[in-house]
């Protein structure tokens, strides 16, 4: 065997870069986090329309998650690489009873992660045929709390499916808004 055939060291930056699409990445994170809520589905709408909703955290997150009344990004917040903005920022979520929680947010095209001291969340989208595969993840952050909530996972799947359904409806609402603004 020719030892020179060995193809460099493992930290070589020139490795093939073909990675995983955002939904596959969220599946991997779900395996690691064992969250109480994970769901994914195919939506018969374009990726751009889905992400216009999912990526608009301040405008749409309160519509997608009933336990959030308002979600405010810090000034100049995460615009995402495509928008030329930073992809990481801080945010504050306000609950229906007036309580607030600070969040760290990572927002990129098709990819959003957020976490507070107690809660984690994620959304991912990728074009799939003529539509979009959309996935959502949510749960507790501390490991002791995650294991305690694991029996609720069947309920969590239903909550995830309803969140995806709400995203589907918000896409439809936005279409109507666009049509009305043009007429």
């Amino acid at each position, binding site marked *: *065997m*020719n*030892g020179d055939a060995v*193809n460099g060291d*493992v930290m070589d930056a020139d490795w093939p870069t073909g*990675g995983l699409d955002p939904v596959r990445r969220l599946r991997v994170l779900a*395996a690691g986090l064992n969250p109480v809520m994970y769901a994914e589905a195919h939506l018969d709408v374009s990726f751009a329309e889905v992400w216009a909703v999912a990526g608009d955290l301040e405008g749409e997150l309160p519509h997608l998650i009933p336990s959030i009344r308002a979600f405010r990004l810090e000034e100049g917040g995460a615009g995402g690489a495509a928008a030329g903005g930073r992809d990481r920022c801080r945010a504050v979520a306000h609950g229906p009873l007036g309580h607030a929680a600070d969040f760290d947010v*990572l927002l990129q095209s098709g990819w959003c*992660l957020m976490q507070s001291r107690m809660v984690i969340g994620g959304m991912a989208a990728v074009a799939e045929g003529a539509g979009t595969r959309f996935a959502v993840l949510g749960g507790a952050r501390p490991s002791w709390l995650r294991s305690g909530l694991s029996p609720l996972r069947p309920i969590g799947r239903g909550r995830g499916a309803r969140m995806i359904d709400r995203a589907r409806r918000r896409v439809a609402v936005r279409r109507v808004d666009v049509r009305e603004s043009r007429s």
Partner: protein
Amino acid sequence: MSQRGRGAAEEVSVTPWAAAEPLVVAARSGDVLALNDLLELLTPYVNRLCRPIALTDTADAVQEALIAVFRGLPKLKDPRSLYAWVRTIAVREAVRVAKRASREVPVAVDDCDGIVGLLGTRTTTELASEVHDVLRRLSSEHRAILVLRELEGLDEKAAGELLNVSIGTVKSRLHRARDNFRKAWVR
């Protein structure tokens, strides 16, 4: 094993740890952003291992390998062995996915540099294309042993432990893999 091969194998278990250590610790505590960074760190390595074995099903193999890695992360006894542990999982998952797949097509050009060393010549796009075709005709087990020896530079003992087979099996499998590769190449 050659000096360079030994160096590559050692770096797998030592150098990357510096970058991965704080991420593993944070990820275990449920830090989703640390998990994201760890995923970005490991994906190219897993991709590099899976691609020559799983061929067109690389995305499935990489996903399955990383799911197994992230699921097992809390149970990893010595986090300093992260990369060796990841390599074991990635190769096994790639072989499993390749066996499951019904079709196989050539690997990417970049992945064949080490394998081309078998022929004692340099890589060109045309040559690499022919190498892809030859690799496609090998079994997933033979591709796996070639990846471990030619790309990762593992010795026979380490390769045997990783594939869960004896050194004798590694030797015979490697002999057949090289033999089949050369025969297919001559044709």
